[in-house]
C-alpha cells in the first residue's frame, strides 16, 4: 500500500492482495520486468505471479502446437485472387496509333508494360504509373539503388526505355514522361522480389519479355 494508495486504482475490478499491493500492479511489474524487495519476498505476490506465469506458458505451449499453425496457404491465396479478379479495375481507355485510327488500350495494360520497361534498367523498381491526357502523359514513380552514381542519368535512361516501349511495342505516342524517384534503396535489401514471387510476371527479367537490346 506504500507506493500505491487505493485512490490510484482505476479499475473497479482490480483487487488488493492481502499484502496491500494491487494485483494489476503486481502483474504489470512482472510483465515489465520490475523487481523490488517486496515482490521477491512476499508470498502473496509470488503466488499471483506464479498463476499468471502458468497461464501464459500454458496458452503459449498450446499456441505453438503444430496442429494450430496454418499449413500451406496457396489454395487460400488462389481463393482470394479468384474473387479479386471478378472485380478488376482496368482504368481508362487510351488512344493508340494515329488520330484517325479507332484503337484503344486500357490504362492498366499500358501501365504494366511501361513499369516493366522501367525495370529493365538494372536495380530499378517501379510503383505508381499513371497515364492520361492528350497526348498521353506518364507519371511514373520508381525506387532506384542507393549506389546510383548519377540519378539524373538513370532517370533519363528510364524515360527512354519507357518511350521506346510505348512507341514500338504498344504504338502509344507519349507526351511528357515524368519520372519521380520516391526512394533510394539499399542494394542488399532491394532484391527479395525474386524469392517472394518466383512466378510473378512482373519480374524484370522474366522469360517472356527478354531483355531489351
Amino acid at each position, binding site marked *: 500500500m506504500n507506493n500505491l494508495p487505493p485512490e490510484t486504482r*482505476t*479499475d*473497479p*475490478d482490480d*483487487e488488493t*492482495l*492481502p499484502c496491500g499491493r494491487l*494485483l*494489476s500492479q503486481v*502483474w504489470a511489474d*512482472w*510483465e*515489465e*520486468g520490475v*523487481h523490488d524487495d517486496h515482490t*521477491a519476498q512476499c508470498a502473496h505476490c*509470488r503466488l499471483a*505471479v506464479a*498463476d499468471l506465469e*502458468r*497461464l*501464459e*506458458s*500454458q496458452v*503459449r*505451449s*498450446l*499456441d505453438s*502446437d503444430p496442429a*494450430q499453425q*496454418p499449413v500451406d*496457404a496457396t489454395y*487460400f*491465396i488462389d*481463393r*482470394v*485472387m479468384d*474473387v*479479386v*479478379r471478378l*472485380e*478488376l*479495375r482496368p482504368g481508362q481507355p487510351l488512344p493508340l496509333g494515329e488520330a484517325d485510327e479507332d484503337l484503344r488500350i486500357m490504362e*492498366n495494360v499500358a*501501365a504494366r508494360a511501361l*513499369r516493366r520497361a522501367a525495370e529493365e534498367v538494372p536495380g530499378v*523498381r*517501379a*510503383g*505508381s*504509373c*499513371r497515364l492520361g491526357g492528350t497526348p498521353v502523359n506518364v507519371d511514373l*514513380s520508381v*525506387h532506384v539503388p542507393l549506389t546510383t552514381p548519377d540519378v539524373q542519368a538513370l532517370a533519363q535512361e528510364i524515360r527512354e526505355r519507357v518511350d521506346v516501349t510505348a512507341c514500338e511495342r504498344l504504338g502509344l505516342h507519349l507526351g511528357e514522361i515524368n519520372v519521380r524517384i520516391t*526512394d533510394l534503396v539499399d542494394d542488399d*535489401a532491394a532484391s*527479395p*522480389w525474386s524469392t*517472394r514471387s518466383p512466378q*510473378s510476371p512482373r519480374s524484370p527479367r522474366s522469360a517472356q519479355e527478354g531483355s531489351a537490346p
Partner: protein
Amino acid sequence: MTGNPPSGEPPDVEGGRSDDTLMTERAAEGDEDAFAVLVRGHAPSLLRLATRLLGDRAEAEDAVQEAFVGAWRSLPEFQGRSSFGTWMYRIVTNRCLNILRARRPQAPLNELPDLPAPAHATAPDRITEGRAALHDVQEALSTLSPEQRICWTLRTLDGRSYAFIAKTVGISEQAVRARVFRARRQLTHSLGAWQ
C-alpha cells in the same frame, strides 16, 4: 519470476518495406498481379492472427478473405499513412472483433462493463501446468468479452505492445491494459478451477 513476455513489436507487421510500398501503389492503380504479391506475402501471418483471435481456422479464412477483398476495393482511397501490413492487421483485427461480438448478443463496447472476474485471492485452485487441453483454453476464452479476448490475444499470443494494440483497435492504452488485466484474471481463475 522470469520469462516475461516480449513487450516490443515483432517486425512482421511492416512486411517487405520497399517492395510493399511499390506493390501497394500498383495495386491501388488496379494491378491485380501486384495485389497477388501482397496477398501472398501477408496471408500467412494474417491467417495466424485471425485463427488466434477466433479460435477457428475456417472462420479465420473467411475473415481474412473478406478483409483482402475489402482492401482491394478501398485501395484507390488508401493514403498510405501506414504500411499495407499495418493496415491489413487493423482490418483483420476489427473484423474478428465484430465476428466475436456477433457470436452472442452484446451491448455496445462503451455501455457494457466487462465481465466481473471472481476474486483472485479467494480462488482456491491453482492452474495445473500442461493439464488443460486446448478445449479447456478455448472454453475459457469464450467466457471473455470480445474486447477482452482481442486485447489479451494480441498482447499474449501475438506479443504486441499496449500502444500498438490501442492504435489497432482504436481505444486508449489504459483501456487496453484494463481489458488485458481482466482477461488474465478471468483466465487464471477459469483454468485454475479445471485442474
